[in-house]
């Protein structure tokens, strides 16, 4: 990759601003801007209405899709319970650790797990017990 690159514009100074922003920073920036935009638009609409004294024809506002708005909503369906260890159906829950298990042989295994291993299993499911 040390070939010449003549197509590059030599006069182009790198914009220092473009230091890699964090993903979270980018998204929050977007969100703030969108909120400001919406506020502004709503303000404009109010002004327009006041002036006319009657609701102007509100342009059917197609929701401008942004990165955040098209994100899928949380699930509404009832969750199925799967065993944390084997992946089969896990109808039972161990009260001490909170792990779900499939049958009593798996329960024996759970009883023998160390605390760190139990926490790992829970983290795989997305449950993060903070103080345990």
């Amino acid at each position, binding site marked *: 990759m*040390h070939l010449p690159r003549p197509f590059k*514009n030599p006069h182009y100074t790198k914009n220092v601003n473009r230091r890699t922003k964090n993903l979270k920073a980018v998204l929050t920036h977007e969100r703030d801007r969108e909120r400001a935009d919406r506020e502004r638009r709503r303000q404009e609409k109010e002004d327009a209405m006041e002036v006319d004294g009657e609701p102007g024809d509100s342009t059917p506002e197609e929701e401008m*899709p942004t990165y955040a708005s*098209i994100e899928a909503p949380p699930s509404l369906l009832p969750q199925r319970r799967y065993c944390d260890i084997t992946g089969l159906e896990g109808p039972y829950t161990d009260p001490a650790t909170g792990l779900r298990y499939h049958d009593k042989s*798996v329960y*024996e295994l759970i009883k023998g797990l160390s605390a760190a291993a139990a926490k790992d299993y829970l983290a*795989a499911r997305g449950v993060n017990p903070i103080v345990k």
Partner: protein
Amino acid sequence: MAEQLNITRLPPLTVPSLSVAASYDQHRGKGTPLIIDNGSTHLRFGFCTSNGPRSQSNAVAKYKERRTNKPLLLFGDGIEAEGGAKSQVKTPWEGDVLLNFDALENALDYAFIQLGIDTPSIEHPVLMTERLCSPLHSRSLTSELMFEQYCVPSLAFCVDSVMSFYYNNLPSPPVPFSSDGLVVSFNTASTSVIPVLNGKGLMSHAKRIPWGASQATDYLLKLIQLKYPTFPTRVTTMQTNWMLQNFCEFSIDYPGLLRRLKDPLSMRASERILQFPFTLPTIEEKTEEELARIAERKREQGRKLQEIAAKARQEKLAQKENDLQHMLSLRERRDEESKKEWAVRNTLQEEGFDDDAELDSAIKKLENDLKKVRKKDADGDELEDEPPSFPLLDVPDADLEEDQLKEKRKQRLMKAGYEARERAKREKEREREEREAEERREVEERERDLAGWASKLKKEQEAIMNKIKERNRRRAALNDRKSAAAQARMKSIANLAADDRVPKKRRKGGGEDLFGADDADWAIYRKINNAAPSSDEEEDMVTLQAVEQKLLQHDPSFTHEHTHASLSAQRSALLTAFRPQYDDGDVEGKSRIHLNIERWRVCEAWFSPNMAGVDSAGLGEIMQNVLSRFSDQEKGRLVKNVFVTGGPSQLPELVPRMQAMLRPILPPEMPLEIVRAADPMSDAWKGMADFAKTDEFTKVGVTKEEYEEWGGERIKRWWGGNWNSSIPLE
């Protein structure tokens, strides 16, 4: 054990091939549009006239080569070749968002070099892909990069999945594009659903799930790590990716599948075994002669020590004999001379003896020692003392003098000791006889009636095992604060500590606490103390083992499997099928990974990301949501042409599964058809190439002047592009 051992070895790392840069002459000055499909995993690029894209994995690594100390910039597959570069890899994408523009710049440089461009600026209009509703930040920076650094004449953005849809539903030109359908796009870090009506992608009704191939790979890796916490080698993401692509598949009916796999046999049948490379440990096997030599040496040393000890003993013996002789001569001298001269001479004191009696006793001791030693050397037996005589005991006290009284006391003590020893010996003999008698009885019984004896012993063994189990259960219950056993324990402790335990009747009599009078009372302390049962347990284990030994020896129907040890260590058949155990010495076995349920579990997460901790609706639900926003008639048009594209869509059984998900929610007469892209990986690029050849393309891009006027965020709204911050076409 007719198991179908599907052992696959991991593929060896392929050495990437160097691709030659194309010659640029074809396109010089022609202004052919340049197509760049900027994907999270692969960067596909090329001119729109070529048949297919050039593709490289989209990653950059700035690496300092060790040997020549030159900083190298590697791109794409070249990173695989250099091991050290892998740790420094950077991709322009983070999940779904373009973030690292240095990396993007390098990637684009590579693309242009490969295409052989050598003009001072890129003179081709460019068509690039964007994520669905990509953040304005990314877009503005990409535009800035393209316009300012590369000076392209015009730049257009599009959404990759819609382009792939276009390619597969190509209208014959020049009819404008007007198909309908529901596009389901499987990307690396997300999955999105976009409805297309009348040829226009309706971005406002599109939805995106934050679960894609990379999340699935991570989930699979996590599952493997949990299942094999002590795996000898590290499993990398590349390997997990390979595993995902080759072994995992969707299941049409996940709960039904689970019910079927509950049975250990079917689980075994469905597993795939992956063999990882392993190294056999080098055992230093000493040859026979070496072993013999080492043993010889040890024996020699032992013998030498023994000889030294024997010599030391001899010397001591000689010394003692000398002393004895000396003292005997002293005594003779004493006897010869008269007492007075003896005292005057104080010979005794010179010798260190205070008294005649002491001299005598010292002589006697030495004689005894010598006798013992000589006897030991001779035959090594213990001396049997003849019953020593105690003459003085019979004489009543009054007649004796003081010295003799002392003697008498001494003799009484010795006699008591001697009698006690005799008694102990006799008891031991009696016990031995009893035991022998019992064994004889047992042997007789066994020979007479094997079955009855065996059953009696088995019952005993069961009883002991039950006791052990009871005790274990009780201990577990005691640990739990709320159980009945623990509460009973607290009650007894409280009782003991309370002062008013004394019953009222006794109080009149003096008020003494009569707790300890009855021996059984002390047993309560055993119950309270949790640590006590250990001694009981050991006794039980010992008796259990003895019983089991006898059974093993004589009863043919009682095998090792019935013993308590094997019963307690038994793992259920299910767990063994799930994760087979290998012996300690089996290195090859230990570096195997068995994938049985994970193959479907990982893919199921696409339809229900809650399994993996992602709080989002699954694919089926999302499709339902998207469809519900349309009228029935439109719905009909959409589902007639459901289009699946993207890399992960190549996982098997996806289409039947989606059909199973969609069919129930649609009215039965609506025709439902699910189609997969002909070439999911590069269809987007091909669609873009075809689109670039049409006239529409020129209208859709943002030219340099427009960029300078509006900035990097504005684009024109068209059927294949994003909507955010876009202005409609004229």
